[in-house]
């Protein structure tokens, strides 16, 4: 090793840092490169949950993940949230490691179960993230009042979760996920337990909230219409091992705002059937063409 080499290495690492910083400023919300996840099952058996996932979610973009149950949708979301770690590949969130993004609280999360703390009032549940991060009481109250209004639960702040319907509880969970105005929202079948009517209503509200906050969203669902109605892009996963089978662009012409009449539009129907074809792996769907 020569001295010159040493110097050039130092210079390299300096420029690397610079470009890293530059990247971070406009890094995509989520970037997954060849991400895979293998679970160690019982008695040494291994479950390949995800394989070769290449996916970029731009800032402010709404991406739906769809696929048959057990295909690894939740797993992928948990990897992004750093609730689990990938066994291969590289995953960055806003240009940082998933762990750093979690520690920096760059995302808000809503699970399939509302996961409210039953011994806290609705308002206290919404304020939980703020309280954990030592936000002052006055500011907390102000924010939770805002959020209660946003999710239409102004009159229920002092109720306990078990006094609310499933749909209302889920709205509280969404308000909680939004509490710190994250730039990335992770949602795992948040409307899975709701009836169709409430579900469509909540979809409309979520679309509205997202348009207002400009957050990127990774939204797990197994409902095709839901995925299409909400998303800019629908990522279709194949059954085990979970791979990206196709990515469908949903191009609603002109206005970006998602309102009920979109459900009647031609684009909606054509996108729904496109996703359905990929999902059922029919002959005319090109499994790899859209990948990457």
């Amino acid at each position, binding site marked *: 090793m020569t001295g010159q080499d040493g110097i050039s290495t130092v210079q390299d690492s300096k420029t690397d840092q610079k470009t890293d910083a530059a990247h971070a400023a406009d890094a995509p919300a989520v970037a997954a490169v060849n991400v895979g996840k293998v679970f160690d099952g019982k008695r040494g058996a291994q479950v390949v949950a995800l394989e070769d996932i290449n996916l970029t979610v731009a800032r402010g973009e709404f991406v739906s993940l769809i696929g048959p149950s057990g295909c690894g949708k939740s797993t992928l979301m*948990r990897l992004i*949230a*750093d*609730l689990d770690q990938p066994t291969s590949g590289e995953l960055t969130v806003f240009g940082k490691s998933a762990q750093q993004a*979690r*520690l920096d*609280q760059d*995302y808000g*999360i809503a*699970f399939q*179960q509302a*996961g409210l*703390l*039953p*011994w*806290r*009032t609705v308002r206290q549940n919404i304020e*939980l*993230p703020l*309280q*954990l*991060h030592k936000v002052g009481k006055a500011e907390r109250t102000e924010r939770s009042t805002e959020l209660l209004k946003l999710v239409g639960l102004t009159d229920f702040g002092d109720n*306990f*979760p*078990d006094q609310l319907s499933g749909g209302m509880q889920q709205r509280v969970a969404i308000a909680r996920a939004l509490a710190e105005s994250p730039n990335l929202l992770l949602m795992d079948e948040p409307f899975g337990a709701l009836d169709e009517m409430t579900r469509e209503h909540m979809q409309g509200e979520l679309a509205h909230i997202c348009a207002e906050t400009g957050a990127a969203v990774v939204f797990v669902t197994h409902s095709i219409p839901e995925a299409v109605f909400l998303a800019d892009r629908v990522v279709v996963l194949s059954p085990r091992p979970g791979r990206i089978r196709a990515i469908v662009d949903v191009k609603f012409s002109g206005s970006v705002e998602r309102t009920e009449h979109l459900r009647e539009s031609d684009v909606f129907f054509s996108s729904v059937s496109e996703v359905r074809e990929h999902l059922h792996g029919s002959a005319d769907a090109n499994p790899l063409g859209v990948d990457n």
Partner: protein
Amino acid sequence: MKATFGATKGIIPPLVLGLVTLLLWQLAVVGFDIKPFVLPSPTAIGGQFFENLPTVWSNSLVTGFNSLVGVAVGAVLGILLAVIASLVRTIDELSSAVVAAAMVLPIVALAPVLYGMFSASQQTARQLVASLAVFVPVYVNTLKGLRQVRPVHRDLMRAHAATTWQTIGTVTLPTGLPFIFTGVRIASSLAVIAAVIAEYFGGPIGGLGKSITTAAAGSNYPLAWAYVLGSIILGLVFYLAVLAVERWVLRNRGS
């Protein structure tokens, strides 16, 4: 509303049973002419109880205070150690053997040994016995309660980058609270039993247990029974006090 109604309804059958038992007891003692040293009648015990109410009261205060110290010390230690055990697996594994042993060991059996360790004129040994009796059920129940945390709540705390202590305070302990109360409730009457029996083995004058042995030694069986009655009431008071706090706390927090 429902809970209150349920509680009153639950109290009636044992109350009836108790009254019937007392009545049969009275009839048997009178009918078969049973001697007081074998079994005094309920009215004789009641008579002695009210006649000696001031001494029963003052002795109850001594035993009651020892029990109270036992509940406080035992519960705090039990909860604290359970929290630590829930965090550190090796402590959990080590303690499970000790706790298993403590469950089969009648803790009052330690009383004579403990009297030797502390000055005979002090209540320390009795309070220590009560504390140990409280510690075991509180520890066991708390540890069980702390393991009830739902995975979604665990994920939630991790997602929000909560510290270990924040997680314990916001999720783990509140989840375990009903179990902790169950432990303390069971332990509260155990504390009184332990404190009373510990007095049988020595220590300073005063206390219901000492009074029972003294009265029995003087062949004053109705009086001995009056002190037994005092012990039963004391145990009941402890149990009901914890139950009341438990009901109040759990109702006010919504679930």
